[in-house]
């Protein structure tokens, strides 16, 4: 039974929808975890499935795999946790700079700092690619936008990540004494 078939069957017999949960909960949870940490991920992942159930009539039955659709719902829910996500990125970019020193993780610190500054739509598209391993087409399904839009959002986001000076590092305190 494909996901599309399970969703179709759940219209008559709602509890069949649990199949979707058993297949995809870990993937949704894993994605949410990278974005907001394990505690909030429990909440986001759980709510993703109750939301998905409520929206199942709108599911595009031509798509066998429901994972992109579910990750799109999760991405929507994650918007309300932007503060936590931002704090995580800030904390990480600070610690990668100060604790590991310049040679250890400068690119990672930079990347976390840049992620924080990306416009929401670009960040969402980019992270579905990098952290959920969706294809461009699947990202389009998840976010409900055409594939051309996905391409341009991701290429802009990647250019910003490569960009030399989006994140101007604070200079070392001149006054050491």
């Amino acid at each position, binding site marked *: 039974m494909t996901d599309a078939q399970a969703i179709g069957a759940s219209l008559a017999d*709602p*509890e069949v*929808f*649990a199949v979707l*949960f*058993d297949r995809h*909960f*870990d993937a949704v*949870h*894993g994605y949410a*975890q*990278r*974005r907001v*940490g394990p*505690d*909030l*991920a*429990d*909440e986001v*992942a*759980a709510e993703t*499935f*109750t939301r998905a*159930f*409520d929206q199942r*009539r709108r599911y595009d039955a031509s798509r066998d795999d429901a994972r992109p659709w579910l990750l799109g719902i999760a991405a929507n829910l994650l*918007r*309300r*946790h*932007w*503060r*936590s996500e931002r704090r*995580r990125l800030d904390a*990480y970019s600070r610690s990668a700079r*100060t604790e590991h020193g310049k040679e250890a993780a400068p*690119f*990672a610190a930079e*990347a976390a700092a840049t*992620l924080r*500054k*990306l*416009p*929401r739509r670009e960040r969402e598209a*980019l*992270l579905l*690619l*990098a*952290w959920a391993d969706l294809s461009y087409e699947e990202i389009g399904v998840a976010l409900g936008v055409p594939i051309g839009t996905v391409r341009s959002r991701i290429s802009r986001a*990647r250019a*910003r*990540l*490569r960009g030399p000076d*989006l994140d101007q590092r*604070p*200079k*070392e*305190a*001149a*006054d050491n*004494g």
Partner: protein
Amino acid sequence: MAELDVLRSLPFPVAEPSEEARARARSRLLRHIRHSRPVRRRRLLVAAVALAAVGAVGALIGVGVHGDGNASAATALRHAAAVARRQAPTPPLAPGHYAYSKSVQAFLVIDGDKGWTALGPKVREVWIGRRGGLLHETSGKPKFLSSGDYERWVAAGRPRVNAPEATERLGPTPPLDLPTNPDALFEKLRAKAEGNGNGVDAEMFTLVGDALRETDASPALRASLYEVAARIPGVELVGPTTDRVGRRGVAVAYSNSHNHERSELIFDPKTSALLEEETVALDGNAFGYPEGTVTGYATYISTGVVDRLGARP
């Protein structure tokens, strides 16, 4: 592809969900399935919610577009800027000196797992120094913003909301790297805010707040910060108000349509000092709180420069 590899290498956990979390989420879904309403009625409900959301966006746009509020906010902010500009310059923070700030504040503590949210009040003292600093906080009784939050907190076994007391050494704080010329400052803050997911104007308002609170900003810089705030589109005058300790001030606000939250800054028009900050939930907020619910505040009670860690002005 190097950027993607770097992103993938960020050491954010990707552990499997705990069995407990998975089981809890699964039974929540099954409960939800069993309790869900007949389709026809649910559709109506969804339509009603969608309409309400459209209404909220409309209202916010309405607020943003009105030019009046913005003009009077600018007048009030420029008045504060003028007051700051007339103040005597303060010397830069010397080595061995500390900028001290004491505030009473409360921000949301969210337990996504157990599903409760509370305001955790604190008395916070910070000493900021070029060689290092200190933070000391004591926490008070949590305040729950809805009876559901309180009930879920009780059901979770009344966990501690904030540590009762915390003392932390702070690292060295470099001087604020901000120009005192208002045009240059505006450009610098705008460049910093550019591309921010919350919108450039919202982020600029946040950056102004960041530079005013718990820093050693000079009067000249403070003047320019108020001038910059006066130029940010969408900043509105809330009007004369009193803060939580009864001081008279003037409040300006920025209503953020991304996160449905209004941020207020209250300043003393006579001294230009930042007295208080507050965040207020707007219609459509993620928590479902009634519009106007206060979701955070900080009242700055005492500030000054001291020559010893732990000393108070």
